[in-house]
């Protein structure tokens, strides 16, 4: 997935962190079991958030076991078992990663292309398997991807329009979780706002690269419209970060409204941490160019 949805670790309690990790661990194992060994390496903490929301909405308890794991073979860690049913999160992770890889094939960078070529064969079968189970969702995702390609070709879309495909994708992913019509609508809007957050953060993260390679980026359109000149060297200009700040803040404000209305009881503290602290913290890290894709803060960069 994208890797921008994570908890602010410094503010998690120890046992919360263990639960968070065990969910991640459980999804990883589930992916291995159902989709094959290679797919598990593409997992990110985004899926753990999705799984926590899923469990919380369904009011399921988490079943954990001490197990060994391939990433840390020397010690046993807490791991959510299949009794918790994390299949939705792992399927969505596979669906989204597959489309991401397809998208990377069109990327100009050689490294990304190569990685996509190497990984795609492993995902073909997994993707088909996930598709069978979540047909409408996979259709919505591929539709959104097509929209994304069209927007990137057009190269004129403003920020709202540019966010739409990712936002619609997340809207579909989260909307699927709701049981009643009200819950579905709230979760869908929650997902939409989350998608906007992801896209804007990603756009800022990629801005330097896109300026260097001459690729489309909605922030470049914003720069052109407002007469901001910047060659992509050094710090982000204040006007750009200010614009991203308000865009992110508006999305998160609307997201919080839905989150409050949903009133999820289970895993409340972890979800609170991610929604109120983690998202902003991650965005701040991106803004200060301290963001690390592998969910490990560089030493000394954690800010409280």
């Amino acid at each position, binding site marked *: 997935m994208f890797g921008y949805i994570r908890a602010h670790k410094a503010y998690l309690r120890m046992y919360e962190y263990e639960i968070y990790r065990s969910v991640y661990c459980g999804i990883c194992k589930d992916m291995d079991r159902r989709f094959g060994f290679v797919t598990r390496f593409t997992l990110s903490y985004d899926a753990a958030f999705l799984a926590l929301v899923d469990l919380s909405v369904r009011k399921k308890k988490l079943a954990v076991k001490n197990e060994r794991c391939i990433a840390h073979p020397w010690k046993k860690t807490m791991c959510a078992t299949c009794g918790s049913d994390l299949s939705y999160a792992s399927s969505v992770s596979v669906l989204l990663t597959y489309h991401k890889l397809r998208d990377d094939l069109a990327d100009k960078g050689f490294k990304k292309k190569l990685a996509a070529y190497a990984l795609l064969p492993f995902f073909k079968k997994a993707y088909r398997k996930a598709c069978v189970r979540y047909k409408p969702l996979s259709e919505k995702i591929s539709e959104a991807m097509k929209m994304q390609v069209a927007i990137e070709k057009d190269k004129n879309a403003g920020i709202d329009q540019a966010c739409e495909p990712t936002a619609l994708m997340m809207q579909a992913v989260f909307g699927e979780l709701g049981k009643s019509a009200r819950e579905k609508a709230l979760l869908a809007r929650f997902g939409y706002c989350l998608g906007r957050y992801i896209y804007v953060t990603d756009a800022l993260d990629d801005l330097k690269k896109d300026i260097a390679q001459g690729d489309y980026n909605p922030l470049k359109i914003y720069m052109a419209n407002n007469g901001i000149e910047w060659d992509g060297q050094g710090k982000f200009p204040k006007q750009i970060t200010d614009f991203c700040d308000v865009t992110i803040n508006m999305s998160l*404000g609307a997201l919080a409204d839905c989150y409050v209305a949903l009133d999820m009881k289970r895993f409340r503290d972890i979800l609170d941490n991610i929604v109120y602290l983690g998202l902003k913290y991650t965005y701040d890290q991106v803004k200060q160019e301290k963001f690390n894709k592998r969910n490990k803060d560089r030493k000394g960069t954690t800010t409280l």
Partner: protein
Amino acid sequence: MTNGKDPYVVLGVSKGATEDEVKAAYKELVKKYHPDQYQNNPLQDVANEKMAEINEAYDEIINRMRNNEYQSTYSSSSYFDSANVRNLIQTGNITEADNILSGVSPTQRDAEWYFLKGSVCYKRGWFNEAYDNFSRAASLNPNNAEYSAALNQMNNQRGGQMNGMPSGYYQNRNQDACNCCCDLICLDSCCECMGGDLIPCC
């Protein structure tokens, strides 16, 4: 939105019922179906379902009442049927509302138009555009309370406000008592260097 059921039927009140009547009917039903009475009872699930239905119906009716109260104070536009557009937005028919708004020629777009366009954008999740439209509406008609309320709410969000944020998060920076004393002592020393005195006793 009560899964197709008429909320008035669910609560068993007539369409012309007053707020007090609705509240009384609601209380009566809650007493009857409260899940606490059905603990360890096979009927518990049914009771839970019924409760959810009643709650939803109650919310819906009260919302409608509040909206109607509001409706009488609505401003309107001379160029298009704004009551209709408002109604469409209310019922969630965003595409239709947007179509009507797009049909208004650019020369005839007044404050009401910008406000409704902003509402449509907000519902769609196009917050940046919504903000632009709300500010336009508020600047065209600064006296309208509804427009400025919408703009205010967005301004709060732009400032980073998130509803339901637990207190205590992110607020314990620079509020350390030790640090405060330390700062004062330093300040006092500095003053003394220059011949003055901030804290006379030390």
